[in-house]
């Protein structure tokens, strides 16, 4: 395997400040030479440039909050569930099985009829997970079960794509079991709060028929 210099070293070479070793490598290496070639393409200088984002408003807001807090003697804390201790949001990974091979779906290669997908989820504090197939405005429950807090869990069920319509999976993390009506409401609202965390997975696809 070829060991290339870092892009920082190549950029320094383009700016006229690099070691002879880097220069010798770039001379002989097609990939590094291509990078230097892209750097050498002249650029048009724009007439205007965007304003850097300022965070001064954040400090103003903080100062205002502190002054308000000093003036108020009663502090009201939001009601939180005591079991909410894990940091982060839930996550969903999609595994693809095609022709006996299993791989993590990268979201790029198209899925097709006959492919099967299986989900690996991390709940981060929610106790239930529900998966539904979205077809038009309807949601059909495919899986419902307990989520294991703190660990990534592979759901026991795989879903096969059959090419007959419907194109998305609804994944809902919750603190209580969901009725079909709750699931439809979650699809509509895509809520993400202490009670519910919702996401829709659109499966990129290619019709193999």
């Amino acid at each position, binding site marked *: 395997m070829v060991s290339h210099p870092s892009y920082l070293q190549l950029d320094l070479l383009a700016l006229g400040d690099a070691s002879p070793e880097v220069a010798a490598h770039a001379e002989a290496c097609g990939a590094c030479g291509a990078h230097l070639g892209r750097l050498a393409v002249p650029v048009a200088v724009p007439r205007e*440039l*965007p304003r850097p984002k300022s965070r001064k408003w954040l400090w103003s807001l903080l100062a205002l909050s502190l002054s308000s807090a000093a003036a108020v003697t009663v502090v009201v804390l939001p009601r939180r569930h005591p079991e909410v201790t894990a940091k982060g949001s839930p996550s969903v990974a999609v595994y693809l099985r095609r022709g006996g091979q299993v791989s993590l779906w990268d979201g790029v290669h198209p899925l097709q009829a006959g492919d099967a997908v299986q989900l690996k989820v991390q709940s981060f504090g929610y106790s239930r997970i529900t998966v539904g197939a979205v077809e038009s405005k309807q949601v059909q429950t495919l899986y419902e079960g307990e989520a294991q807090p703190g660990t990534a869990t592979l759901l026991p069920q795989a879903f096969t794509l059959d090419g007959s319509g419907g194109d998305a999976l609804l994944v809902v993390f919750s603190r209580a079991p969901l009725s079909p009506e709750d699931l439809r409401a979650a699809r509509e609202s895509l809520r993400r709060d202490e009670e519910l965390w919702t996401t829709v997975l659109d499966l990129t696809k290619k019709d193999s028929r």
Partner: protein
Amino acid sequence: MTLGLRCVEVEERVRFSRRSSSIDASGNARRISAGDNLQDVEATYRRYFPLIREKCRRMLGDAAEADDVAQETFVRFWQSARDKDVRAASAFIYKTCTRLAVDRIRERARRPSSDRLLDEVADAAPASDQSLAARRELLLVARTLPGAELEVALLSRLDRLTHEEIAEVLGVSDRTVRRALARLDERVAALRKEPRW
């Protein structure tokens, strides 16, 4: 249990997810400064902008988003570091646009998963298979990776910087860099584990 397919809708949404470059059309655009020597600005821009843009494209994939970040990086560079020597200037550029890109990547990671997947499909920047794979992996772990560790990950995996170079660019110790990369490897390895089913 079955789940059906439909093709056209997704392809249309992919097209919608592409954004056009907006430097001249931006309502917030402005001249760098009325007092700046225009020739100096242009010379500095021609010298440094290509490497800023290439770095942003390596990190972000989406060409329009990369150009946005590259322009903001250049403005910050012009305002704060244009008089530095080449090595210090390059380090400033790497640090600044990495941090700006981390903001964008974490913003993507907060969006619904379907949008993130479409971002991947819409990826239009030229890149090697290796860097594409690295970018996808980073996108997958971005949701749970702290910002500082994501900066280290980008500099290591996409820019190929050594531990020493990363430490110098970010102003942290070698040990901090090694630990951040070890944690990244653990997260990626967990994702790569194939399920038994």
